[in-house]
Structure formats: C-alpha cells, structure tokens
C-alpha cells in the first residue's frame, strides 16, 4: 500500500506544501530491469531509494569505488555478485546516458516580491 502513495502527496503532508500538478512520482522508484535488478534492489535500497542511483552518470571505475564503499558501509553484496553488480550499474548509469529528469514535489508560487 505504501508504494501507492505518491512522493508528492507524502511530501505535501510532511512539508505542508501543496502538491504540484505534474506527474506524481511514486515514493519508491524502481531500478531498471536486468539480471541484477533484484540483487541491486536488496543490496542498495535497504538504506536509500533508487533515485540516488538513477541520477548518477558514472564510469565503471567510479561505480566500482561506489560499490566497494557501500559494501564496507553495510550493503549486502555476495562477493560472487560484485562484478555483475558493477556491470549492471555502469551499463545502466554511464556518462553517455541521457540526463536524469527529477520529479517536482510542490507548486512554484514562491511568495514575496521580486527584484530588489
């Protein structure tokens, strides 16, 4: 049920902001399909959500550092899966992929005057 609540609605509750009319984002975005999707979900999304991954555009060397750092910080990665996980991330979130477009959560009517 939690998945059905939009992040927009939930942030509107927590911040008191009215929700924007743009397409609502689910609280939990999904990692892309692939052989390592389930294991990446288990390893990474226990601590943080998928958008933190979806917005990255990194080289394989940079993803290797990230995976090793996160494993040290508690991400459960079977040593046998490490290389495949790095391949999965560096294939889906490489520098040549189109820029990530983040959703918005609230209306854009900032209060107050403009200019000086």
């Amino acid at each position, binding site marked *: 049920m939690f998945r059905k609540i939009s992040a927009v609605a939930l942030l509107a509750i927590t911040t008191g902001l009215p929700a924007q009319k743009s397409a609502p984002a689910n609280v939990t975005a999904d990692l892309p399909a692939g052989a390592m999707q389930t294991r990446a979900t288990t390893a990474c999304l226990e601590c943080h959500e998928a*958008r933190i991954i979806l*917005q*990255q555009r990194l080289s394989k060397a940079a993803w290797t550092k990230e995976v090793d750092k996160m494993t040290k910080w508690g991400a459960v990665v079977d040593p046998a899966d490490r290389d495949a996980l790095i391949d999965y991330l560096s294939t889906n979130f490489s520098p040549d992929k189109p820029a990530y477009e983040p959703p*918005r959560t609230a209306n854009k009517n900032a209060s107050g005057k403009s*200019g000086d």
Partner: protein
Amino acid sequence: MILRSFRFVDLESPVEYFNTWLTPVPHFFVRNHMHEPIELDASGWRLSLGGEVEKPLTLSLAELFKLETHSVVNTLECAGNGRSLQRPQVPGIQWGKGAVGTARFSGPRLHDILQRAGLKPSGKHVMFRGLDEVPGKVPPFIRSIPIEKALDADTLIATHMSGSPLTKHHGFPARALVPGWIGAASCKWLTEIKVLDAEFVGNFMSPGYRLPNQPVKPGDAVKPEDTHAVTALSVKSVISGPIDSSSLKMGKVTVHGAAWAGEADIVKVEISTDGGTTWNLAKLGRDQAHYAWRLWSYDWKPGRGGDYSIQSRATDSQGRVQPETPVWNPSGYLYNAVDQVNVHVS
C-alpha cells in the same frame, strides 16, 4: 521543489524561486546524508558539551532559550550545489543550481556556551554530532570546525529560522549555524558539542568534504594528503529569470538573480548577453547582510529577435571572480562557473 531523493530526503529549490531575499522556509533546500531522526521530543531533548572544557554542561531547550539570542542572515549552500554540471560527472546527489537559500537564523552564540563551560587552552576544534538515524554501517555524520570559527560572534546554536522554530527538515530543535561556510558545517538536530585538541577524524572530515590543494585536471585522482577541508563558500551568482530555454517577446527583459560569496561581500555582478564579449553592471538589491546573498537585476533590451545566451558573473570583496569554466574536483564541491541561460527572443 525538485525531488533529488525521497529517502533520504534531498530537496532542491528551482532557481526561479530565488526572487526574495529571504527564502520561504517551505522552499528552502533540504540536504540529508541519512534518515531524519524518527522521534524528536523538545521536552526530552538535551545538548551536551564536553571535551576540552573545565565544566561539561548539559542544556535543555528551555535553558538554551534563556541565553541571549543573536540573529544572522545567512546564505546556506550545500558544498555539492552544482555537482551535476561537473564534467566528468562525479558521484553524489546530482544537484542543479538550487541547493542554496537564505534565512535569518536565530539562537544563542556558540561562543557564549563555550565560555560558560570554560574553554581550556587545549581546545582547538569544536565537534558537532546530530541525531541523524544512521543506516547500516555508515559512519555517523560528525564534523568539526576550528576554534576560531566556533568563537566567532556570528556562529550560533540556531533554534529559529526566519522567525519560526526550526522545522524537522532543517534541524529541529537546534542546529549549528556556521555562517559563510558550506552547509555541512551547520550540523542539524544537534545533540552533542565536544571540544577537541585536533580536527575530528571521521569520514565526513576525510575523505569527505575535502578539496585538492592544487588545481587538478578533470578526472584526475587526488591523494588524501594533497587535500584540505572545504570551509567557506565560493563567489557565485545564479540567474533566476528568465529561466533557461524560455521564449521571450521583444521589449524590455529584466534579467535577475542572486549572488553570494560566503565570508566575503559581493562587489558587483555583471551580465553579458553576447556570449561573454561585453559585460554590463547589474543593479544590486538593497537588502544586504554580511553572510547573505544580494539579489540583482539588469534591464536588457534585445536589439533583434533570435537566440541569446545570457550570462552572469559575480566579483567579491576578496577579488574572487566566477570562472568561465568550472574548477573540477573529484567530489564536485563548490561549483561556481559563470552562470548561463539560453533564451529565444521573437
């Protein structure tokens, strides 16, 4: 707000919000390294102060409120603001231009609390610990600042933001406010202050939040011993209107935005509408405070229809000028290249 992450909560202000000197709190960016505290009970909250002091203290919120209050209007910017614009890209929250905002922070001076505890001469750095909920084996978010900055009359234990108690997103019931410095220095949900005889050793002091001592080529690795802690903000301006990729009608166009420089003052903001060949002075807004941004505006009359690049470039009282090209570093800190929006005039 731009949702960079829901868990942990990381929210960015769209730059078009930067049209007021004080950023409305609901539109103020939110940066969390970890989960926000699950429970925050104002009556049970305590702030402890120990380490290199004569008389360790524990203060309740009521006791904190009894201390003399001071206010500082401060532009708070995440060290990683603009990270998404670095090439090659580097890991971290991919902030655009809006992980920055300005508010009036109020609360007792850290100086007064340290004096009350009796600072020992051996005290050289002051450590802050927050109540962040730490996931997995992630190192706790603990950082320190040098004693000189801690004793500065404008460094606060803030309980209020622009006249209201801090919201949970911004560190209720109390946070450090280290003016002019990167946001990470201003620890939220403060629960412990410890005076140390040396800089705190931990992930968020090193390797986190460090810059190369010397400029490096984009993509180069940097050895930890060749780095220093990021402290004060750079000189920077952003264009808050017209927004990028907008279509404008022929006639007067007011280009506007904000400029800030950490511990320095903004001296001028210049605007170019011809790709950087010529620059014209923008008018600085009347609202100002030492650590706060200046709003600015420039009236432009395009001579003909077509595509234009509008650029803004700030200069500060230390003689620093926004560079034409970004100064790259491995963590994407303190991005401050000349800002640019592209518009079409018809």
